């Protein structure tokens, strides 16, 4: 797993209090990992902090799964 993926996973595990092995490529934050809409806003903010990037609102809306997040951040950083 890439360095970015490791760091994203750590954030997801911490914020959503889920087991690490649940955080798979296609795991949806809301449907599979128990997040609500406010949790996802906070997750995106945490990604911005960790990677020193800005994720615009329209882009944030497309980040639905762990894989989406890693892909976006890989492209942005």
């Amino acid at each position: 797993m890439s360095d970015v993926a490791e760091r994203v996973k750590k954030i997801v595990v911490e914020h959503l209090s889920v087991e690490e092995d649940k955080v798979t490529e296609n795991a949806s934050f809301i449907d599979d990992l128990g997040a609500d809409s406010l949790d996802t806003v906070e997750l995106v903010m945490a990604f911005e902090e960790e990677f020193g990037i800005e994720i615009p609102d329209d882009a944030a809306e497309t980040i639905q799964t762990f894989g989406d997040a890693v892909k976006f951040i890989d492209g942005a950083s």
Partner: protein
Amino acid sequence: MRRVVVTGLGLLTPLGCGVEESWKKLVSGTSAGGAITHFDASALATTYACQIPYGDGTNGTFRPEDWVEGKDLRKMDKFILYGIAAAEMAVKDSGWAPTEEEDLQRTGVMIGSGIGGIETIAETALTLRDRGPRRVSPFFIPSALINLASGQVSIRHGFKGPNHSVVTACATGAHAIGDAARLIMLDDADVMIAGGAESAINEIGIAGFNACKALSTKYADSPESASRPWDKDRDGFVMGEGAGIVVLEELEHAKARGATIYAEVTGYGMSGDAYHLTAPSEDGDGGFRAMQAALKRAGLNAGDIDYVNAHGTSTMADTIELGAVTRLMGPAAEKLTMSSTKSSIGHLLGAAGAVEAVFCILAMRDQVAPPTINLDNPAVETVIDLAAKQARERKIDHVMSNSFGFGGTNAALVLSRF
């Protein structure tokens, strides 16, 4: 009018996490005063308070994770956490665990707070200034809003009845219980989870009350003796924190399910001073009228009241309240015991009235009036027994609990043995 009884109790106080834990220490005359450890208070005029004993959850200590899942803790200010914990205790104690939709819709929540999420607001203001609006948490607003204590409790238990909240400064807890009881009397609900929660032991809270010269400042060397209602050497109130919650229930509803009935809410009176932002009028007229209204509602005479849990904050206003109670009681004053439990736990602001109502109920249960500790030299002479330094075993059938708040808001509850 339908009758309302108390069927569940929950307390998180500076004396301990739990009803019996708090009560035992209260009756034995323990002070919860100590140096502030929640934050660095060295720059403030007041460096002590009555803090909740955080710990591993044993021996009456409070462990937040025992009450709210770790990941949810950062979504709420501490006053909400305290309210949730005390509400869990009260609901469990009542044995009311409905699953039918109709029962859930007839169960409501009314938990208030005087100040609410002030710490969250202060921290977020700094984030906003230092790091800009994009760093403001999506949980900021639902963490700080006062009615979110009621909201959180309703979500956790599925209670779909009236969801309401009270904000009347230091009268909040008493108003919440009185108003919730009325909702049941008027048939808006059969069961109400009611009370108050507060967490203002933080830099902005202490600084704010210091600025209005309300807090004790002279007892940094002996914080356990700082809260001393009616004593000559009192110099302001000592900040406390925590929550008190009761389960109120329509009498027949409680009987039908065989619930343990602790007491009946027989009287409730309210008034406004229309006088000053922070001080009561010298004649104590506002408090007097609230007490009078509560007695009238209860259909009792002043002489029927055995114990008064005073507002008694350890400020000059203690004397004014004592004067008003003396006037209310008339010749019956000689038989009355009145104490201020704020001498032990400090002033829990919006939670005070609810915590003190629970203490009143336990006073009736155990037939013992908790003491006013630290009352070494009364500032005034009175025929009323102020339970100085020691609890009083005595007959207690009817109690009155007074709560007065900034802005000149007054509430008095009368509770009766059932």
